[in-house]
C-alpha cells in the first residue's frame, strides 16, 4: 500500500490515506488491517488499525490513528509515496439492520469513531438514516465531523463541555429518543456503559473490541474475550460482537 496523504487532525490524531496499484479487496465495516511498522526499533508486532473509510472511486483506504506510542508515532511520520506493508482485510463486520426504517445510533468515543464513518457511509448508501453520537475529552479530540455529517445527523459530547453537550456519550439527550439498534466503538468503559444502556432499554447493540493482538488472524489465541460460549478471538471471531454475547459485568 502506498501513502497518498497524511493529514494531522488536532494535536494527537492523524488521517492516513493509502492507494494500491491493484484494486483494493472488498472491505466490510468493522474490519481492520495489521500494519507492519518498519524502522521503529521498539516495535516488534504489527499494529491493528480499523478501516476508517474506503473511497472506491479513488481506490483509497483511510486509517484514522491516535498517537499513543512508538508504533503510532512512527506512522504519523509517513509521507506521501511511502510504501507500507499491511495485512487486510481482517476480522468480521457490523451487521446491517433488518429494515432501512430502523432508527440507528452509531456511538463512538475518541479514536473509536474510526470504523463508524465507513459503517455510516454504507448505511446511508443502503437507504438508512444513521445518527452519530461522538464523544471526546475536549473539542481538540473531535475529528472528521464534516465527513460524518455527509451520512447523517451528528450529536456531540465532550467531557469538558468545549463542544456539544457536556459529559459522557451515555448522558446525551438523544438517548431519550426511540432507538432500534446501536453500533459502538471506543474505550472499553464507554462501550460497557453504552451496552448497559442498550440492555436496560432492550436495544440491539453491537460493539467493536480492541483487545491486544499478536497475529490478527486467529492463529495465536492471544486476543480473546470471554463470551457466553467461552473465549473467542477478537481478531477472527470479532472484533464486532453483539453485546448480549459478551460476558461483561454490566
Amino acid at each position: 500500500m502506498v501513502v497518498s496523504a497524511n493529514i494531522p487532525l488536532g494535536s494527537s490524531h492523524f488521517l492516513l490515506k493509502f492507494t494500491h496499484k491493484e484494486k483494493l479487496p472488498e472491505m466490510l465495516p468493522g474490519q481492520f488491517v495489521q500494519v507492519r511498522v518498519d524502522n521503529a526499533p521498539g516495535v516488534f508486532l504489527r499494529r491493528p488499525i480499523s478501516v476508517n473509510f474506503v473511497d472506491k472511486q479513488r481506490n483509497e483506504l483511510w486509517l484514522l490513528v491516535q498517537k499513543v506510542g512508538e508504533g503510532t508515532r512512527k506512522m504519523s511520520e509517513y509521507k506521501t509515496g511511502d510504501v507500507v506493508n499491511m495485512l487486510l482485510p481482517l476480522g468480521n463486520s457490523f451487521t446491517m439492520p433488518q429494515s432501512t426504517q430502523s432508527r440507528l445510533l452509531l456511538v463512538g468515543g475518541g479514536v473509536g469513531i474510526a470504523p463508524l464513518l465507513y459503517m455510516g457511509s454504507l448505511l446511508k448508501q443502503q437507504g438508512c438514516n444513521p445518527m452519530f453520537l461522538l464523544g471526546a475529552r475536549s473539542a481538540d479530540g473531535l475529528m472528521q465531523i464534516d465527513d460524518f455529517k455527509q451520512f447523517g445527523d451528528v450529536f456531540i459530547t465532550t467531557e469538558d463541555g468545549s463542544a456539544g453537550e457536556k459529559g459522557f456519550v451515555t448522558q446525551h439527550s438523544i438517548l431519550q429518543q426511540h432507538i432500534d439498534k446501536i453500533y459502538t466503538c471506543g474505550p472499553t468503559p464507554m462501550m460497557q456503559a453504552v451496552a448497559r444502556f442498550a440492555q436496560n432499554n432492550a436495544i440491539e447493540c453491537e460493539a467493536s473490541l480492541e483487545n491486544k493482538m499478536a497475529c490478527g488472524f486467529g492463529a495465536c489465541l492471544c486476543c480473546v474475550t470471554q463470551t457466553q460460549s467461552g473465549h473467542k478471538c477478537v481478531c477472527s471471531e470479532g472484533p464486532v460482537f453483539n453485546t448480549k454475547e459478551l460476558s461483561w459485568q454490566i
Partner: protein
Amino acid sequence: MADLKIRIGELEFKNPVTTASGTFGFGEEYTDFMDLNRIGGIFTKGTTIRHREGNAYPRMAETPSGMLNAVGLQNKGVDYFISSIYPRIKDYDTNIMVNVSGSTIEDYVATAEKVNELDKIPAIELNISCPNVKQGGMTFGVSCAGAAEVVRAVRKAYSKTLIVKLSPNVTDIVSIAQAVEDEGADSVSLINTLLGMAIDAETRKPYLSTITGGLSGPCVKPVALRMVWQVAKTVKIPVIGLGGIMNAADAIEFFLAGATAIQIGTANFIDPAISVKVVEGINEYLDRHGYSSIYDIIGALEA
C-alpha cells in the same frame, strides 16, 4: 537446486522448515497467505485430552524484540481435533504433527493413543515444557526423572515418530535431552518459551493475567542456539531447532549448530508467509555456497 529432504526417525520431510506449535493454529489460518504444501511440516496448537479454556485476558505483552504469551493451552480437546479439524487438514501434502500436552501421565498417554489412530498424522510432539499450566508440563520437563517417566509411558502407547519438546527453563538441558533419548524418543525439539514477565510501571501491575509468561521471538535466539548446539553434539537422535528464527539466515545458524530441522514460531505473526520464504532462502544459501544437500551444513559449525 540443492536436496532439502531430511529424516526424523522414520519420517521423511520434503524440506527442513516447519512451523511451531501455538503460532500456526492448525495451518488453516494461514491458507490465505501461503501454500501449506510448500513447507516440510506443521506442528499443531497444543492439544489436550479435554477442552481447556486457557488463561484469562490479557495473555500477551510485547517486549524488546519479542513477546510474552500466557495463552495457557486453550484448545477444544483431542476428540474435537479428530472429529472436526483433522478431516479438513489431513490431505495437505506436508507432515502434520500434533503437539500433545497434558497435566498427568494418564492424560498424555490417552491423547497420544487417540492420535496414534490417525493415518495422516505421522508424528507427535510431546510438550513437556509449557510454562503456563499450573501443575502441568513444567513439572515433567524440568527434571530428568519427570521427563523420562512421561516419555517412557507415551513411547509404549505411541508407535510412530515421537518428538519431545524441551523446556529451556532448566539448569542442564543436555541431561534432560539424554534422559528423553534413553527412553526411546526419535527426536527432541528445542526450545520452548523462556519464562519471563513484564510490568507496567505506571499502573504498578503485571501486563499478563498470569503475571509470568513465555518469552519468544528474536530476543531468545542466542539462548536457543546455544542449547541446540549443546544438545546436538551430545545426543544421537536428530534435533529440531527453534527460538527466534525470523529469516533464512537465522535458520542456517541453527543448522550449523546441529539442528536437522527448524521450526518457525513468532515470526509467522509478523509475516504469515515467512516459512515459504525461509525454504527459498535456505535453498539459495546452499546453491550459493556450492552445497548439494542440507545435510552438508548440519552441525558444520567451524569452531
